[in-house]
Each structure stands twice: as structure tokens, then as C-alpha cells.
């Protein structure tokens, strides 16, 4: 009751106090000795002088941006979960964790300042917005690097020509931190010009992902995320049944292929941005700097050797210096810069889980099936070295615990490191073998059969010398025609089918259609990398709409694009892979399709 309110009447109107009267009672306001209408409001009442409203929790926009960062990291192949919380004072924080639950990014907002920390950062970085965080990160990197004074900084974001979504900025920063990056991400945009996907394309793609409006499911996820500090994983899990209801089998396969195929470009885009905001020592582009250039050159040499030996395409592939191969150099350099375990942990100021180190993080990149696929596609050199030891690639079966996966991956990491120096030789040796074992154990024959089983009605069973073959087309009619007169001008598909049936059944004598493999231009066996994986899924997807025919036995599968079988030899390619479980997949398709999936140059 001690509060006194002073209402200021309008200056142009006489004070009308009738409304203050109620019978005999009159409510009076103390004007504190001032003439009515003349007093001035205290300055601190003015809006500009009011203290900034204290934000509580993340705003919707912030949460949407953070969620998009997760989406971008997912797309770039960084295995992560997102969780959030608020302090006892209401300040928000969120963390990005590995699938093992270890925190690798802590982001918070206190007093309108963002702070970001990571085990890979010597000191936390702060800023008023995401771009500011990156600026501080870059400044720290410049100060730390003795070559800073002579370094060249490419500022993509400040010339006004390149728009970057805030989520893309933050994702690029986290990506950089994740791979301990500022002196390792050395992908130069100009290096990519005219070779495969350019940096601009990657950044455009990145922006497309970041700018893409969240679909209904994602919006629901964000809404849940806003309401309660649920984990993003929980949200995504909750969405799964809904997603399964909405998606058809075909969309699922094609979608996965598209996602996988787009993962590397996303990574390239993030790297490009990371470089733009970080530092690039001119040493990386100075041939006189042998050490740093060596890191760039090695994977390219390996790749060229591989392709020379396996596909006899040396001239084409020697010049193949796409962004992916540059990133191979990046990751290779990462392995060569794994922090010394003897470093005093107190040297790291971070308060985040101290038991994470770069090697663990990288192992987790390489260990987890789906993201590992992306990493494998990036780290071409390591992928190659995986093929060195047959016949038991590391198995990342679903029933393995993440720790087991990581442990296995660490073993593979060692293997990659020890075999790197001899990769060229071993690749040439491997080229002599018919099929190179796959490192991608996550993709096994069972998953393929799950798909083909869904098309059971489309298959017919044929018996060739006791060997049961299932096919989506009438093999018998073709073999009968061909066997009747193998010298006739048989349809062009016959030689290829003859060859494939021979391969499938290993019964050359009984299924000799009189042809050879003239119908296909080349027979190339390569490791089942992420591109092959995506291509097989693409072919399976196309089979569901009748564009690709399938022949399968108990442990072998052939996918045939009939357009390819009817095309000229120069336009077709025949390729096979061994899956993780020892079963095989063969494909016959159009050269353009293989090129699109980077399976050939």
C-alpha cells in the first residue's frame, strides 16, 4: 500500500476527476507537488535506457538453428546426438555428443553471449552470434599458428557474395573442431574448380540443407525439443514409426541413396566454409613447403595407382583431383597429427569430458556404420588400405556395442596407418584378385534380400543344372534361343546374361550361351565403398519400378539395367563387389550411372 502511482494527464485537456468519485468518496492521487501535466518522466523510463530483457532458455529461432546444425552434421557424416538444458538461473546450454555419450561440443548462452567449448579447443570461444564465434575461433587459430603473419585468409563470408545460413556457419565451426581442423582442413576452393563438385556447389548445397524448411516431422522434433530437454535421438526415435508409415520402400531406398550421395558434398561444403573462416597458410599452396604438400599429394597418388591397377584408367584418374580426394588428404593429415597421449591433460582448459581425444573422435567417425560410410568416401586412402587384408574385414554388426565398434575401429586405424606407406603396391597386388573384400560390413546380403523379398511376387524360379536361380525376367526363353543357335545374331543382351549366369552359378558348361562378355565394355572389381553402396541401392530402387532386372541365387545377386545390355559396349559397365558377409553383388549398367556415383572416371 505504500506505492504511489502518478498518472500524467494529457497537457491539452483539463484534469477531469469525476471518474474518481464514487458517492462521497474521492480517490486522490498525490502529484508530489508538481503541476499536473508538467512533470517529465524519468529518463530511465525511456525504452532505450531500459536494461535488455533477460532471455530465458533458447529462443525458437535458436533452437531451430541448433537443430539444423545437427541436421547438417548428420548429413556430413558426423555421428552426434543433441541434448539441452537450462541452469538454475535459466541460462540455456546444449551439447553435441558422440553416440558413445561423450560430449564434444558445449554451447551455451549467458548474458547474451554465446560460449562454445570442446575438448579439442584450448580455450572456449565466445561471441554475440555464431559468426562471432567463428571470428574468435579464426583469430585464435591465427594467433596460434606462427605462419599467421604470412598466411592468406579467404573470407568467403565477408565479401557479400556468399550467403551462409547461421546454422551452416555453426555447423562448419563444429565440423572444423570435430576434425581438429584449422591447420588440417586445407581444401582450397580453387583446387576444386572444374573438377567434380566445386566449393561453390558444396556451399550452395549446404545452404539448401540449412535453408530448407523443416518438414512436418522435423518441426515436431524441434517443438518437442523446445518443450522439454529431450534428446534429439529420443525425438527422432519417436518419429521413426511415423516416417515408416509415410515412406514407401522405393522412396526409402532412393532416399538413402540420395542422402549417402549427398553426404560427401555436405562435408566438402563444411570444409570449404571452415577454410573460409579459418586460416590457410600459403605453405599449403607453396610447392617449396614439402611437408605440407606431401600430405596433400599422398592420397591422390594412391588413388591414381589404385585406378591404374584396377580399372586401367590411369590417364583419366591421375588428374582426378576432386574435393573428396582433397578431403582424403585432410583426414590423412588428421591421423598424422593425432595429439600426443603424453600431453598433460591440464594443458586443455576445457571442462568437457577429458577422456575424449581426437583419435577417439576420428575412430568414432570411422566406426559407426552410416557416418563411417561417409568418412570412408572422404578418406579414400584409408578405404584403400582396408582392402589390404583379406578376408576378414572389421565387422560392425548391429549387435556390437559402440565400444566394441570403436575398439575395432581403432584397430583399423592402426592398420590404416601402418599400411599407408605401402598402399600403392598392395593395391596393384589386389588388382590381380577377382574381388576385393569390402570394409562396409554394415551392408550385407541380408539387407539386400530383405528388399528383394519384398518383391517376391516379381521373381520366377529357374533350375540350371540343379542350381536354383530366381529372376525377375524369363531367363529360360533367352537361354533356349541362344543355345539353339549360338552363332546367330542373337540379341545383344545374351552374351552379358550368359556371362552373368556363368558367374552366378559357376557352371560354365551347363549354362554356356555361346557368348562372351563382349556385351559389356569392362569387368572391374572394386572395393565396396560408399559410392558402390549407394549405387547398389539405386539399382535396387530402380528394380522396384521395373527399370532394373534382378537375378539372384542363394548368395549372389545380379542387377541388370536392360538399357545397358542393349547399348553399345562403350556405354556399358559391368562391376561386382563382395559384401561383408562374403556374398556378392554384380551390376550391369550404363556408364553414365557409374560415373554419376563416382565408380569410374
Amino acid at each position: 500500500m505504500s506505492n504511489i502511482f502518478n498518472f500524467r494527464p494529457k497537457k491539452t485537456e483539463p484534469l477531469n476527476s469525476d471518474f474518481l468519485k464514487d458517492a462521497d468518496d474521492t480517490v486522490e492521487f498525490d502529484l508530489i507537488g508538481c503541476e499536473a501535466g508538467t512533470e517529465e518522466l524519468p529518463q530511465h523510463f525511456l525504452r532505450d535506457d531500459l536494461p535488455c530483457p533477460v532471455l530465458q532458455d533458447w529462443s525458437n529461432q535458436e533452437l531451430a538453428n541448433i537443430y539444423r546444425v545437427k541436421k547438417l552434421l548428420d548429413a556430413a557424416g558426423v555421428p552426434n546426438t543433441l541434448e539441452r538444458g537450462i541452469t538454475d538461473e535459466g541460462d540455456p546450454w546444449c551439447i553435441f555428443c558422440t553416440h558413445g555419450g561423450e560430449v564434444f561440443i558445449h554451447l551455451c548462452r549467458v548474458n547474451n553471449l554465446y560460449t562454445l567449448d570442446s575438448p579439442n579447443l584450448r580455450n572456449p570461444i565466445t561471441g554475440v552470434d555464431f559468426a562471432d564465434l567463428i571470428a574468435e575461433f579464426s583469430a585464435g587459430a591465427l594467433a596460434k599458428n606462427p605462419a599467421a603473419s604470412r598466411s592468406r585468409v579467404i573470407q568467403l563470408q565477408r565479401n557479400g557474395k556468399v550467403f551462409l545460413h547461421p546454422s551452416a556457419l555453426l555447423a562448419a565451426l563444429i565440423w572444423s573442431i570435430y576434425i581438429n581442423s584449422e591447420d588440417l582442413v586445407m581444401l582450397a576452393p580453387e583446387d576444386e574448380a572444374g573438377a567434380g563438385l566445386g566449393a561453390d556447389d558444396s556451399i550452395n548445397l549446404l545452404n539448401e540443407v540449412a535453408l530448407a524448411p523443416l518438414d512436418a516431422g522435423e518441426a515436431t522434433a524441434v517443438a518437442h525439443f523446445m518443450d522439454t530437454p529431450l534428446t534429439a535421438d529420443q525425438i527422432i526415435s519417436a518419429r521413426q514409426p511415423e516416417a515408416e508409415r509415410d515412406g514407401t520402400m522405393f522412396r526409402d531406398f532412393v532416399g538413402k541413396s540420395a542422402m549417402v550421395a549427398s553426404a560427401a558434398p555436405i562435408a566438402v561444403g563444411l570444409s570449404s566454409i571452415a577454410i573460409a573462416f579459418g586460416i590457410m597458410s600459403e605453405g599449403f599452396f607453396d610447392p617449396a613447403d614439402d611437408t605440407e604438400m606431401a600430405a596433400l599429394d599422398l592420397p591422390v597418388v594412391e588413388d591414381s595407382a589404385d585406378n591404374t591397377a584396377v580399372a586401367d584408367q590411369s590417364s583419366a584418374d591421375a588428374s582426378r583431383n576432386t574435393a573428396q580426394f582433397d578431403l582424403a588428404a585432410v583426414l590423412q593429415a588428421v591421423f598424422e597429427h593425432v595429439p600426443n597421449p603424453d600431453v598433460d591433460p591440464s594443458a586443455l582448459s576445457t571442462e568437457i569430458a577429458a577422456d575424449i581425444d581426437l583419435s577417439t573422435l576420428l575412430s568414432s567417425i570411422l566406426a559407426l556404420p552410416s557416418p563411417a560410410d561417409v568418412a570412408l568416401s572422404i578418406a579414400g586412402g584409408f578405404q584403400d588400405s582396408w582392402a589390404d587384408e583379406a578376408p576378414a574385414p572389421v565387422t560392425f554388426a548391429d549387435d556390437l556395442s559402440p565400444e566394441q565398434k570403436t575398439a575395432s575401429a581403432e584397430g583399423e586405424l592402426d592398420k590404416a596407418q601402418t599400411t599407408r606407406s605401402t598402399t600403392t603396391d598392395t593395391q596393384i597386388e589386389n588388382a590381380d584378385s577377382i574381388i576385393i573384400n569390402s570394409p562396409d560390413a554394415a551392408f550385407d546380403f541380408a539387407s539386400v534380400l530383405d528388399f528383394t523379398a519384398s518383391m517376391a511376387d516379381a521373381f520366377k524360379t529357374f533350375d540350371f543344372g540343379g542350381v536354383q536361380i530366381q529372376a525377375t525376367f524369363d531367363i529360360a526363353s533367352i537361354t533356349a534361343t541362344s543355345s539353339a543357335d549360338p552363332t546367330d545374331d542373337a540379341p545383344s543382351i545374351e552374351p552379358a546374361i550368359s556371362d552373368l549366369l556363368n558367374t552366378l552359378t559357376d557352371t560354365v558348361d551347363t549354362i554356356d550361351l555361346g557368348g562372351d562378355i563382349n556385351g559389356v565394355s569392362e569387368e572391374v572389381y572394386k572395393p565396396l565403398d560408399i559410392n558402390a553402396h549407394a549405387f547398389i541401392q539405386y539399382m535396387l530402387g530402380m528394380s522396384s519400378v521395373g527399370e532394373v532386372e534382378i537375378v539372384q541365387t542363394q548368395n549372389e545377386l545380379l542387377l541388370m539395367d536392360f538399357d545397358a545390355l542393349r547399348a553399345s559396349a562403350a556405354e556399358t559397365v559391368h562391376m561386382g563387389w563382395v559384401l561383408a558377409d562374403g556374398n556378392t553383388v554384380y551390376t550391369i549398367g550404363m556408364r553414365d550411372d557409374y560415373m554419376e556415383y563416382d565408380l569410374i572416371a
Partner: protein
Amino acid sequence: MLAEVQKATPEEAKEQRTALGIWLKELRESQHLSQRELADRLSLDYYTFISQLENGRGRIPVHRYAEWANALGKDQRSFVRKLLSYYEPTTYKILFEEDGTQASA
């Protein structure tokens, strides 16, 4: 051989750290400290880390165990033993449960 190593699953680790977070929060509150005040005692760069830990995410860096014990008014040995029981339950069991004589030695 590495595959035979028994380790906690991420879910188990998360449960253990959640329980530890609750314990840490109780300790802090028993000292009548806010999260910010505890962070100040520990000279943390950002006090939200306290909230993160109390929510069972992440872990206290090993090299700061003693400082945390002091800040929360706990005996260092008993504090670290408690942390060990949550962070490294297998190690803790070997050291302190299966052979009590060794533990006290």
C-alpha cells in the same frame, strides 16, 4: 581380444552419470551454493558446465577431482571414490568391493 573387454553400454553410462549428477547437485545444494557460485569456486569458464554435469552429461576432468572435492566440502579420497564408482564401476568394484582388504590397504 578387444571385443571381449567388458564395458558399460552408453545407456548404462548415461544412467550412472545421471545418478552422479543428482548426487553432485545434492552436494552443491547442501553447501548452499548456486551453480554459478560453484563455478566461480572452480574458476570455470562457464557455469553452464555445472548444469550439464548435474544433468548427467559429461564428466569431471580427472585432473580437477581434488578441486571439486574441496569446492563441495568433501574429503578428497571419499569424493574421488564416489566418482570412480560411477565413472569406472568395474574398476571400483575390483578395488573396493570384491576385496575389501585391498581397498583398505
